[in-house]
């Protein structure tokens, strides 16, 4: 979706404000939001979570903090999944008639979960279309749903720099939960191809793009 989250190249959002000796969290509630999101029964589909945050209305998205976005998306996903009702959210009390669930993640499961290595690599559906060194154009796509093809590269030509294998495809996964694996490539774009002659001649921007985003150039 062409949301405000897709902000590469936008002007007017202010200077960067680095913070000296920044702590991992700035308030206790931020810790609890992060932990609740990770332990929640709604966890498991990273693309659905990202898309839920993209669906936050644009003006709110720019105004509220990072962990507030996580909190809003968590509430929305708990409602959608039927894990809580609107009445329960309003009253902050469990419906006495509702059956009690069993937490997905127990305390003793946390440490093993943080040492387990995952992977988004899947069996390829077909041979890779592109190889390192190929010139490709990012397609001019504007899907209304989730995508990881930023607006600032659409229609631009780059070069395949690395082939990563077939990875879970977010455009499908966010909406249906199906992996729908597609080949993933690192594509390098000259900064001048993206931004014109104002960019430094030798600079470049590399993105990881799935095969359905690309055509041969």
């Amino acid at each position, binding site marked *: 979706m062409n949301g405000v*989250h*897709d*902000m*590469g*190249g936008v*002007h007017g959002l*202010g200077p*960067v*404000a*680095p913070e000296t000796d920044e702590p*991992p*969290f700035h*308030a206790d*509630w931020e*810790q*609890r*939001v*992060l*932990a*609740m999101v990770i*332990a*929640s029964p709604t966890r498991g589909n990273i693309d659905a979570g990202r898309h839920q945050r993209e669906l936050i209305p644009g003006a709110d998205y*720019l105004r509220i903090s*990072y962990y507030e976005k996580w*909190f809003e998306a968590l509430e929305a996903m708990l409602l959608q999944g039927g894990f809580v009702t609107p009445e*329960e959210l309003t009253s*902050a009390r*469990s419906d006495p008639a509702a059956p*009690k*669930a069993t*937490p997905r993640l*127990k*305390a003793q499961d*946390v*440490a093993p*979960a*943080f*040492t387990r*290595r*995952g*992977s988004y690599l899947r069996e390829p559906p077909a041979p890779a279309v592109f190889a390192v060194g190929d010139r490709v154009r990012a397609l001019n796509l504007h899907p209304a749903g989730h995508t*990881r093809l*930023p607006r*600032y590269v659409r229609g631009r030509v780059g070069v395949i720099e*690395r082939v*990563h294998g077939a*990875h879970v495809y*977010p455009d499908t996964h966010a909406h249906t939960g199906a992996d729908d694996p597609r080949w*993933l490539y690192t594509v*390098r774009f000259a*900064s001048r191809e993206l931004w014109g002659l104002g960019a*430094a001649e*030798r*600079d*470049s*921007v590399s*993105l*990881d*793009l*799935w095969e359905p985003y690309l055509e041969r150039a």
Partner: protein
Amino acid sequence: MSRDHDHHGQTPPSDIALRVKALESLMVEKGLVDPAALDAIVEHFEHRVGPRNGAQVVARAWADPAYRQRLLADATEAIAELGYGGGGQGEHMVAVENAPGLHNLVVCTLCSCYPWPVLGLPPVWYKSAPYRSRAVIDPRGVLMEFGTELAPEVEIRVWDSTAEIRYLVVPERPAGTEGLDEAALAALVTRNGMIGTALL
């Protein structure tokens, strides 16, 4: 920061703090989360992961040419050798090395993708609109806001983390560090150096 801060802090809890507290008690009451698991997750991010992990990877790459080769060829496996990589946001790692005349900078323009196992949670500025919007179009201007000035002839490669590949910048080893062991080298490596917003 301890949870007691909520009860004894100088400032009254904010609206969002109250909403979070209400949702947590509801989720606990309904059996959707285990409060002890929440504590363990917080403990992990406060004490188990952070840029010290990444600094050890960089120091090893500086000290051990064979490790450096493995890191540049397959960062996921090389980082796993040192015991890092589990728990998400580090499933597929790529290490990009700075060199004389070449500088790397990492961003996620679409959200906040960041290599948690080696760098911990991202700083607020990394997740902020100013950084996400401008790192790709004006990397030199962004670097100046960190006090990092690169010569005009230096090539900048920006890496926009649009998939589940996570990037770690290997900064240039500072001059005059030939006699240092790995622990002393690791102490020189900063988080911003491994994102690419600082030089060492």
